[in-house]
């Protein structure tokens, strides 16, 4: 792979407090040097970044890939294409596939399938319970040895308090991280939208917003009881954030992420039965959206994940309650996050932290940093360039974006994986 000097870029690495104009030198697929006054060694090609931002390749800590089992929705190859277009070079994949990733061999398979793409590191999550069925614990120790970065039942919450306690307790012995889909399954059963005026008008079965805070409150107590690490995925309500804020203040090892729909959209997006805005958890009231925005800024939220859930048209062209929840999110992750910077006062460095070192720290992954000697996983983007999200024209196979027609500012110009240009 040819060495490369990226010149005339704004180097931005929130984890290192780095924000300066300069260049970055890639040698043998690794970051050899970066800074203000880099000389160009002989025989090294250059690329003029035109003053755009060069940051670590984004780390997406929550995505479903379609493989194995749902290849009609997305494949690892097509997801990798979408990820590259979104500036993402490292991605944690949910285990609730068909079959579920609940065997060490499957964990190794997911790792190597990522390597085969040449553009994307896949950090596999493993099932917390066998088959993600919520009945008996998976082999947490063996799965971890095989390379699982954390344990979760994906889109399914562990509803049984006794099982959750056992899981947290057992995992703590290995220092393993558990990720919970925060929604009380009994309260949420049969629901299609957040309970409230919008669901009432549309005649849709509701899920009370407290279904999230209830499970989070319970699990925080279980984390305290067991001394275990615990992460809540795609948090979406004000009450949940308040619980997590307090748990952090208390010193518990509790973290959380959210996803762009929860700070960019509210429940009105499902008006006229728009199934592309049917998500899990469902879109919330405006007050909750505002609380999520505040949580991004004040540090309560540790990461922004794409929450990429590929679906095909047949999954979505159904009456609302029957349509499958989930939205495509890889290609729009950065753009929708930057909308918070442009329109809501979120600091650019903070936004990027939530997309790079933030999730890497939660997962304990060596990624999301501009560091000399580290693999040259890079994202070059123009924070001002305008574009419009258009379902049907997004990179990758899944086109089920809840952001169709959304005008965005901030476009990825180039993505590099281990020094190789994989997008742009």
């Amino acid at each position, binding site marked *: 792979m040819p060495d490369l000097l990226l010149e005339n870029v704004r180097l931005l690495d929130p984890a290192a407090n780095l924000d300066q104009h300069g260049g970055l030198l890639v040698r043998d697929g690794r970051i050899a040097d970066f800074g203000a006054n880099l000389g160009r060694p002989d025989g090294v090609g250059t690329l003029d970044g035109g003053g755009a931002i060069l940051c670590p390749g984004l780390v997406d800590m929550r995505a479903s890939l379609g493989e194995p089992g749902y290849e009609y929705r997305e494949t690892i190859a097509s997801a990798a294409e979408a990820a590259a277009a979104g500036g993402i070079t490292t991605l944690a994949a949910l285990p609730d596939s068909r079959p579920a990733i609940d065997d060490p061999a499957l964990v190794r398979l997911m790792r190597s399938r990522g390597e085969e793409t040449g553009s994307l590191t896949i950090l596999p999550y493993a099932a917390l319970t066998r088959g993600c069925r919520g009945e008996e614990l998976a082999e947490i120790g063996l799965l971890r040895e095989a390379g699982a970065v954390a344990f979760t039942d994906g889109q399914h919450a562990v509803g049984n308090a006794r099982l959750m306690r056992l899981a947290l307790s057992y995992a703590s012995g290995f220092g393993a991280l558990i990720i919970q889909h925060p929604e009380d399954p009994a309260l949420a059963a049969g629901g299609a939208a957040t*309970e409230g005026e919008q669901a*009432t008008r549309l*005649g849709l079965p509701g899920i009370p917003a407290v279904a999230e805070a209830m499970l989070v409150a319970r699990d925080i107590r279980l984390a305290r009881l067991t001394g275990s690490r615990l992460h809540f995925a795609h948090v979406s309500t004000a009450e949940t954030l308040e619980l997590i804020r307090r748990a952090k203040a208390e010193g518990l090892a509790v973290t959380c992420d959210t996803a762009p729909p929860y700070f960019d959209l509210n429940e009105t997006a499902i008006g006229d039965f728009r199934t592309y805005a049917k998500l899990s958890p469902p879109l919330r009231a405006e007050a909750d959206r505002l609380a999520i925005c505040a949580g991004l800024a004040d540090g309560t939220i540790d990461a922004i994940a794409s929450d990429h859930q590929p679906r095909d048209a047949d999954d979505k062209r159904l*009456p609302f*309650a029957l349509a499958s929840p989930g939205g495509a999110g890889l290609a729009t992750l950065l753009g929708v996050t930057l909308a918070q910077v442009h329109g809501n006062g979120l600091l650019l460095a903070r936004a990027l932290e939530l997309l790079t070192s933030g999730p890497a720290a939660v997962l304990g992954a060596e990624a999301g940093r501009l560091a000399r000697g580290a693999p040259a996983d890079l994202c070059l983007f123009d924070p001002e360039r305008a574009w419009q999200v258009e379902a049907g024209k997004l990179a990758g196979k899944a086109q089920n974006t809840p952001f169709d027609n959304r005008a965005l500012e901030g476009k990825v110009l180039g993505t590099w994986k281990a020094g190789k240009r994989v997008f742009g």
Partner: protein
Amino acid sequence: MHYGHKHLLAIEGLHPPEIAHLLDLAESYVLLNRSGKTQRDLLRGRTLINLFFEDSTRTRTSFELAGKRLGADVINMSVSTSSVNKGETLLDTATTLNAMRCDLLVVRHNQSGAPNLLAQKVASSVINAGDGTHEHPTQALLDALTLRRRKGSLEGLLVAICGDVLHSRVARSNIHLLTTMGSRVRVVGPPTLIPASVANLGVEIHHDMESGLAGADVVMMLRLQRERMQGGLVPSEREYFRFFGLDRAKLAGAKQDAIVMHPGPMNRGVEIDSAVADDPVRSVIGTQVEMGVAVRMAVLDTLSRQALRNA
């Protein structure tokens, strides 16, 4: 003022003049129907398909009669929803209907929003004949026509809608129509059967029949489906009847001349006592059925003219 839409999917979003137009036109059809005459040239050569994914006798028959009285070719299609591929069936059906060159499509489905989905896919005008727990617009129109004929105007009427509001598409359509036309609306029922944030739709909430019916001009009863008992939303039929079933004693709290309505089919002894349901002075349940045909004629008339205008 013309009715400004291709379809009739919901009452929500209709403007008062649009509703008034449909009611005025329906009024003329009441007179026509009573005279024993028909107007078979209006929809001659047009095809109306009754597409029912859910069992119904009364609504389907009412649309069938309305279509035939206006001269349409009426076809009834009953589609089983027991098939696992409900969604496929719905869109496949849309393709089939387009091939048949159907003009007016009347849809009933057990899923909220199913007619909206079909309306995106078919060339014909779609009339929602009841979708899940969303809306049942022609029921609200026929209730309004019944009320208007009996009470003169909808403006200022106090209407109590009682029972399983949560699962009722009839209630939602009536709430939208009545609040749009200036009536005061109360919903009355146990908290487990009242939808969240329903007050935002402009109604008052009551959890007991005494306060809910006090001073009401109209008592609109809703059907309680048996499976609600199994879901634990109410403990038993006898408890429900004791507290929320409409009998003479509870009706006595409403105005002297209050009328009683029910969209049918009734669960006698569950939500309504036969003595009330069959009371010739108070109950207008029979009139509602008659108004149903006239209202549906008005809707078919309006939508087919609208289609011609847009053609």
